[in-house]
């Protein structure tokens, strides 16, 4: 189908900005809050211009206290608001961890469904931008283990736009992990499209020999891997999981039943990472289909290293290809 006129090329960060703008426009109960989200427009400019257009009461610069930000967002949600909270960087979400895990995640169950907390927690995450300590982490596993939270991560501008719309509309708390190294990557966004389900994976490239599953920043890498592998005559399927809680196991299973091999790629450390959960469950579901164990490519069991070592630490073309080779060697 030809591209409609409603489609525009934009950077991922800009897509989120537009999506927030649309949500603020559509629903007076939506508020954006966080450190430096106002005049500055956030350190990544994701909230650029929003305070100017919607005022200080809708786009709120908060004191520098992450527990306070999430805790007051919960209170605002109890009053009927739909707060979209920005955590400035992945490594600074931990002061808010208690409020997220013991309050935000559990309030709906605790109240037997009487209280809904439609709070979105935006977290720019991941490495590859040459930053200092605490600015490059991928803590999604630390939230996925916690029931009551939904966790998503877009890999491109269009998903960023639409998944943000859906996250804000969700009556559940959503942790929205934004792949900060892809903030400046541009792609088409159709602002009139009808988006698919928020938690459904998508086959971004069909293939027959092996499935690569990834989300957020690693999807692009996996596409590059598939390109490289194609040159060697190997047909890799690339799945963009899009959601880490829930995980679309049906889609992975369907793919693996065809390709019989699976490599999961994420920036987060492998140990207790999402690859572990995917490997365990897919092995259970596809025990007789798998020709090789599910392999995982991710961070090492080490603190995220200083910038000059991050290329070594992060999954890259070679490391993923190596895993592909190892899988195919079974």
């Amino acid at each position, binding site marked *: 189908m030809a591209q409609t006129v409603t489609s525009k090329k934009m950077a991922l960060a800009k897509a989120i900005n537009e999506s927030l703008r649309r949500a603020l426009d559509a629903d007076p109960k939506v508020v954006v809050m966080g450190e430096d989200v106002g005049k500055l427009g956030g350190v990544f400019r994701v909230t650029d211009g929003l305070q100017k257009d919607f005022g200080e009461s809708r786009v709120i610069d908060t004191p520098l206290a992450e527990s*306070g930000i999430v805790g007051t967002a919960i209170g605002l949600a109890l009053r009927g608001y739909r707060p979209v909270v920005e955590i400035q960087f992945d490594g600074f979400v931990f002061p808010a961890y208690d409020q997220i895990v013991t309050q935000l995640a559990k309030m709906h*169950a605790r*109240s037997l469904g009487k209280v809904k907390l439609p709070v979105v927690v935006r977290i720019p995450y991941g490495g590859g931008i040459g930053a200092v300590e605490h600015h490059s982490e991928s803590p999604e596993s630390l939230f996925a283990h916690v029931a009551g939270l939904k966790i998503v991560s877009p890999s491109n501008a269009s998903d960023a736009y639409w998944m943000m719309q859906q996250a804000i509309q969700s009556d559940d708390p959503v942790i929205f992990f934004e792949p900060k190294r892809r903030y400046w990557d541009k792609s088409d966004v159709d602002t009139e499209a009808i988006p698919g389900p928020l938690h459904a994976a998508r086959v971004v490239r069909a293939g027959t020999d092996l499935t690569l599953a990834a989300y957020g920043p690693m999807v692009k890498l996996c596409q590059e891997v598939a390109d490289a592998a194609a040159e060697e005559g190997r047909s890799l399927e690339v799945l963009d999981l899009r959601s880490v809680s829930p995980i679309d196991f049906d889609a992975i299973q369907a793919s693996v039943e065809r390709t019989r091999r699976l490599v999961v790629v994420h920036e987060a450390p492998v140990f207790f990472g999402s690859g572990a959960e995917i490997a365990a469950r897919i092995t259970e579901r596809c025990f007789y289909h798998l020709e090789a164990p599910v392999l995982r490519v991710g961070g090492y069991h080490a603190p995220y290293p200083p910038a000059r070592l991050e290329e070594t630490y992060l999954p890259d073309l070679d490391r993923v290809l190596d895993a592909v080779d190892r899988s195919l060697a079974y």
Partner: protein
Amino acid sequence: MTVESTAARTSRRSAGNKAGTTGTKRTTSTAKKAAGARKSTEPALVQLLTPEGKRVKNAEFDPYVAGITAEDLRGLYRDMVLTRRFDAEATSLQRQGELGLWASLLGQEAAQIGSGRALRDDDYVFPTYREHGVAWCRGVDPTNLLGMFRGVNNGGWDPGGNNFHLYTIVIGSQTLHATGYAMGITKDGADSAVIAYFGDGASSQGDVAEAFTFSAVYNAPVVFFCQNNQWAISEPTEKQSRVPLYQRAQGFGFPGVRVDGNDVLASLAVTKWALERARAGEGPTLVEAFTYRMGAHTTSDDPTRYRHDDERAAWEAKDPILRLRRHLESAHHADEGFFAELETESEALGKRVREAVRAMPDPDHFAIFENVYADGHALVDEERAQFAAYQASFADEDGGE
């Protein structure tokens, strides 16, 4: 439950506030002076009723209970007595194994009923796990409070029903929710207020300080009501602060007041003052209600390990209920009939609570999977289905034998 708090029986208004607006005309400057007055190092304790039941004058706070009638006073008394009765019943239900745990409010009735009756219907309450008296004032069915202590739910009443949030066990967390809720009130342009309860122990949590910061910066209409009952389980208040807790507020830019938390009238007056500051756009206030936890921390606790009986004895002389009774009697505000009737009502309450708890059904196994999410979650669905199949396998086995 047919039991009703005095507020519920009397058309839901603040006690001592016939028109529901008395005192709102109070000038800001007076209020500020009242706050400023607490700066001396010797803590000034606001007291309107002495332990002997004598009404003492207080220029700052008398106006907040100026409209109070004998009927109001009897209502406060009734609420305290019924709350204590309910609390005692819960303690005994725990001993009988009907509850897994109980956190008694014994001794804190005045702080809770006084502050609880200061509220308007459209105000919102964020309690800890011990605010049974406040819940009572809000018209929350007392049986509802027992669900979590029985282990059938983790709260489960509808917070929106009575503007009374669920009990929060992680200490201090709710002060931030209260602040956020109050920020929402401001955004809505409403004139209601929020009250957040917390303990002397909780005052040390970073969350409480952050709540102070946010509420001050956004000038949120919230009253922080700290029941300093002298103990955080086994730790005396000196383990939390080396100065009186009400002074904490000042450094965040809002006033703090210490009130006699065993004096229901003073608790009512000071809370009304603080709530009116909130409504008038003057932002947060910290009220430290100086009171005493007469019982154990919870039924699991053994206070003999860490405190002396003398201390308790000294506080018994300041009992909140006794004190108001003395006042009612000496002022001839209540006759024997009133007390006798209350005694009957009290026993009936106990009986009803007992029966309701015993009749409380265990939750269905599948409740585990309910309400984890509002919009559903594929994994929960999958696990629910697996569990159902697993359960069914027993039925099959049984049927097959």
